[in-house]
């Protein structure tokens, strides 16, 4: 099981690295998004606006990046998975890989965004932790949604329609938590949001874990 998860993660990374167009596309997406915000805002003083724009960038980057998670795989590769791998390993491997990927690009976004538009974050550790948990949460929701959407055909539009209602509870907690981190509010206040976020981060992958085998056999 763990070997298979590792196998999936390495395979995803190798494919990604061999064909760097997707990653370059994401970089361009981030750069242009941040730059457009820079051109129109110059510097954001209002914390709520800064926070909202940051999560919007992350959200749309995630939808863009993860839409191809299952679509890019040919029929032959799917058959290969089906005959040699455990479905649980496939979904967990993909969730972990996509989560790491999103976290990497999330940090890059934060870096560029902070340089260009100003960085009001006071509690840096808390903010990074929020981004980490948020990226894994978003990754586990969208990986599963991507699996559903890829089975249904019409990919990218369906992905957004199915994904947003499910992402909303996660995003509300994330926005509260990162707002508190920006304002440097004491850890004890954040604890209930952090607990909720951790609970969601455990709940969503376990749901995906239970449900993915049903999507798998076609």
């Amino acid at each position, binding site marked *: 099981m763990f070997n298979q998860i590792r196998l999936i993660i390495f395979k995803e990374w190798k494919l990604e690295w061999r064909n760097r167009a997707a990653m370059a596309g994401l970089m361009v997406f981030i750069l242009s998004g941040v730059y457009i915000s820079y051109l129109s805002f110059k510097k954001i003083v209002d914390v709520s606006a800064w926070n909202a724009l940051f999560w919007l960038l992350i959200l749309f980057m995630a939808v863009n990046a993860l839409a191809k998670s299952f679509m890019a795989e040919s029929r032959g590769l799917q058959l290969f998975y089906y005959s040699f791998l455990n479905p649980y390993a496939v979904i967990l491997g993909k969730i972990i890989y996509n989560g790491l990927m999103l976290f990497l690009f999330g940090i890059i976004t934060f870096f560029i965004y902070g340089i260009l538009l100003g960085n009001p974050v006071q509690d840096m550790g808390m903010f990074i932790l929020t981004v980490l948990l948020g990226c894994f949460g978003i990754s586990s929701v969208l990986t599963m949604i991507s699996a559903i959407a890829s089975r*249904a055909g019409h990919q990218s539009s369906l992905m957004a*329609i199915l994904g947003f209602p499910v992402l909303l509870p996660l995003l509300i907690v994330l926005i509260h938590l990162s707002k508190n981190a920006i304002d440097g509010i004491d850890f004890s206040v954040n604890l209930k949001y952090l607990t909720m976020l951790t609970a969601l981060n455990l709940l969503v992958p376990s749901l995906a874990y239970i449900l993915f085998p049903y999507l798998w056999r*076609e």
Partner: protein
Amino acid sequence: MPNVWKIACVVLLYFTLFAGFLMPVPELPILNESIRNLYFHVTMWFAMIIHMIVTIIYSIRYLAGGKIQYDLKAEQYAITGMVFGIAGLITGMIWARFTWGAFWVNDTKLNGAAAAMLMYAAYFILRQSTEDDTKRAKLSAVYLVFAFPLMMAFIYILPRMTDSLHPGNGGNPAFGQYDLDNQMRLVFYPAILGWTLLGVWITSIRIRIKKLWNSHEN
């Protein structure tokens, strides 16, 4: 006596209407006579949640056993549930207009209700997107079982963590604690049962029509 529950439904709803509008209610500031909306607004949401749970049960049974009838029932219960949800939203908006002063306020409970409606809409769009019966049944069941626990977290857990105008959240007492006297309970519980039975009745007729339609097509 197979039709006893239908007679009970009619009797209960007549009782709800007459007793709901005519029986004395506690006089409370701001709420005044609008407290009678409790018999309509709150009961709509109860009926919706019950229909949602039935939909989930049929979806799980479909995933476990694979009988296409379960999918048909799940879809019809979802449609009735959404009708109750819209009715609950409208009665709630009218109530909000006269107690809080606006049809819609930015409130976690209301956001949760809107997201639940979005989730239903996404479910129906997903159903439209594939032609194949078994594939449609499987995908929509997986999506619903995946989204439902998150929705529950959104509607029932998140509002209790943050401030909310809505009774029962953020330190506001629920009706049950002191407003709801025994006389109101006498109408409230039969009203829930009455609306739910009405929903089940409508759904059973719709299921029969759908089955006839399917056998006619074959």
